[in-house]
């Protein structure tokens, strides 16, 4: 451990990010995104455009592909400051998932057609992996693509496709052959074309974020294939592992911890502020301890740039998702009666009065707590992550 201290250059960078946010993040956008509701695609695109003007719209990409070339510490600081300021989340489907696959495995033509407009905020992505009969188990995907001249023709059904209704492009994992590991291919498809039917699925919050996507003779050119045919399983695995490395969601959890304290300070319980209840305060402290350890585990994982250490991706996914669930559940509990009132996302986004009374921090809390129940399900359910730890880390 040559150096466990913080780099002073990082603190200068933090100040630079802060100043940028102060000058460039539209206040009304910040208001919309500071609570539990999720960024609209239009906020995300607008914010991407603003960042692009500064060259910051792909914080985790290398410079040669239009990214910032930042260190992992800088990326963490950027995330942290953006989250705290209320900036909308960027399009992680594009930034952390399909984008790196394109610049690593894609043809020059594909890179040139897709990456620049994405960096300018002109593309919104969705990810089409899960199917009605294949959740965490990608080996049993059945949506099939058949080559017809210069096009693939795709037929099948995808489900739980977040944001498909607002996406302009979708990357699909489809079957082009038999077998589990050599029969899958990754294809990019224009989301707005005949043959693609998008059926909304209201989620547990009664909001529309999930979709079923029915593909009926959908065509996409061979030039939209990522890498080689039959290698999709490997790309998907790399992508999911990359996702898990960020799955501790340190910036989000830090914000949730701060919000929890704010709620506990602002809520009276039987005549005193909830934060003065020693039992509730101990529950907050337990969550904080978990956060403090998890943050350093994430730092360790990020500092392992050459991949020589053990992979902590599944550790971060399991504990990060459990922590976000615990924190949001404590927030709902702390709200007391106001945790049982249904606030409206539409009213919040439009800056209109809420249908239910309550303090200003109440709207969005329950909604986020509900949404986060999915954190332990998507990207490989936590049960599967534990099995992965046993197999990969413990070599069982």
């Amino acid at each position, binding site marked *: 451990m040559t150096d466990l201290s913080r780099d002073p250059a990082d603190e200068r960078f933090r100040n630079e990010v802060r100043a940028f946010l102060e000058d460039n993040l539209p206040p009304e956008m910040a208001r919309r995104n500071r609570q539990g509701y999720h960024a609209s695609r239009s906020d995300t695109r607008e914010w991407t455009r603003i960042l692009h003007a500064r060259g910051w719209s792909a914080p985790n990409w290398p410079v040669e592909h239009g990214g910032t070339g930042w260190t992992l510490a800088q990326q963490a600081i950027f995330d942290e400051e953006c989250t705290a300021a209320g900036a909308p989340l960027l399009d992680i489907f594009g930034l952390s998932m399909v984008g790196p696959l394109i610049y690593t495995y894609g043809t020059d033509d594909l890179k040139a057609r897709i990456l620049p407009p994405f960096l300018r905020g002109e593309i919104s992505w969705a990810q089409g992996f899960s199917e009605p*009969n294949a959740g965490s188990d990608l080996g049993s995907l059945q949506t099939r693509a058949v080559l017809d001249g210069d096009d693939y023709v795709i037929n099948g059904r995808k489900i739980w496709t977040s944001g498909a209704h607002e996406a302009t492009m979708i990357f699909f994992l489809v079957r082009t052959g038999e077998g589990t590991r050599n029969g899958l291919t990754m294809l990019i498809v224009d989301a707005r074309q005949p043959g693609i039917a998008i059926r909304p699925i209201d989620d547990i919050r009664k909001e529309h974020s999930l979709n079923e996507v029915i593909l009926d003779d959908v065509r996409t050119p061979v030039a939209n294939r990522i890498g080689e045919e039959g290698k999709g399983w490997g790309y998907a695995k790399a992508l999911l592992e990359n996702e898990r490395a960020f799955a501790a969601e340190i910036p989000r959890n830090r914000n949730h911890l701060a919000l929890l304290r704010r709620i506990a300070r602002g809520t009276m319980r039987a*005549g005193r502020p909830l934060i003065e209840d020693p039992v509730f305060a101990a529950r907050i402290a337990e969550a904080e301890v978990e956060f403090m350890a998890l943050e350093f585990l994430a730092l360790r994982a990020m500092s392992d740039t050459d991949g020589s250490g053990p992979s902590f991706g599944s550790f971060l996914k399991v504990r990060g998702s459990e922590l976000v669930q615990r924190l949001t559940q404590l927030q709902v509990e702390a709200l007391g009666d106001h945790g049982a009132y249904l606030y409206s996302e539409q009213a919040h986004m439009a800056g209109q009065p809420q249908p239910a009374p309550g303090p200003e921090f109440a709207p969005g809390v329950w909604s986020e707590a509900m949404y986060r129940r999915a954190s332990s399900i998507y990207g490989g359910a936590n049960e599967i992550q534990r099995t992965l730890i046993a197999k990969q880390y413990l070599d069982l």
Partner: protein
Amino acid sequence: MDFGLSEEQVLLVDGARRYVEQTSDYEARRKAVDSGEAYGAARWQQFAELGWLALALPERHGGLGGSAVDYALLVEALGAGLMLEPLVPVAAAAMALVTAGGAGDLPSAVAEGSARPVLAHGEPGSGGLLTFVESRAERSAAGWRLTGAKSLVLGGAAATHYLVSARTSGDKADDAGISLFLVPADHAALGRRDVRLTDDSVGAHLAFTGLDLPDAALLGPESGGLPALREGMAWLQLGLHAEALGAMDKALWTTRDYVRTRRQFGTELSTFQAVQHGLADMAMETELSRSMLLRLLSVFDGDSAERDRTLAAAKAQFGRSGFFVGAQAVQLHGGIGMADEYLIGMIFKRLLLLRNLHGGPDMALGQLTQD
């Protein structure tokens, strides 16, 4: 002790189960919610005809004189259907009225289905402390003048009357000084806001800014409303726990059936040990909750320190178990557990709401430490 059901109880439970199976599919519930109505008026009339609204009321008030056990069995069966109707809040208010006396024929009207009083007791800052009442009632020329606010009034949007606790003397958490008032839901000066709750039911938030009431609105002795309030809140909690048990049981067996058919990695989910053990934990939590409800029923008759203690223990037990069972059901279902159209999410939301009601399980643990 004898935990077996009597013949009458078997009939009662079978009837309620059949009713739920025939009328309470989740698509119907979703439609009712989307229509925006606070409760099903036609269903309420059926409840009355089936005798369910009269079940626990004494015969002198037009009731059937059933026991708390009978009542809990009925509500558990209905709980599997996640009813939107405020049967439990109304039954609780009716029992409080019976204890307080003085509301004329109101309990009989409850039994018939024509009146739906509910308790309006909790306040934004009371956090489940029974004696924490900041709302005040003062003598006025006309009778009484009410000031304050009541939050999260269950069944509040469907109610015909509110049974309001207000202080006529004493300080905010004193035992003495609480009085009960009957306020008609259509009182012109009542500040009432119907609020959709997170479990899809509709409650109300009430504000009184100098609301005038006649003398007769006071129920029971002035400043001596606590026993009736305590009785009503005890019945409310009993009913909510019984509802939760029905919902937990439904979540358990629905999840069991799901993992038997759902395939992953070339085999049924049910063959994975992690899934089996997750379900075993759900089963244990459910049966421990049922055991706690039975314990509560064994001491339920009559106001007593042991009943209060067991009420607190049941609150803690159901809070923990209900949340665990609901969350685990969502987890084992995966994506479908997160969809609005599916019953598992509905059950989870209901159990989460019940968990955090009345100050949540921590408040209950705090009560248990005071002895």
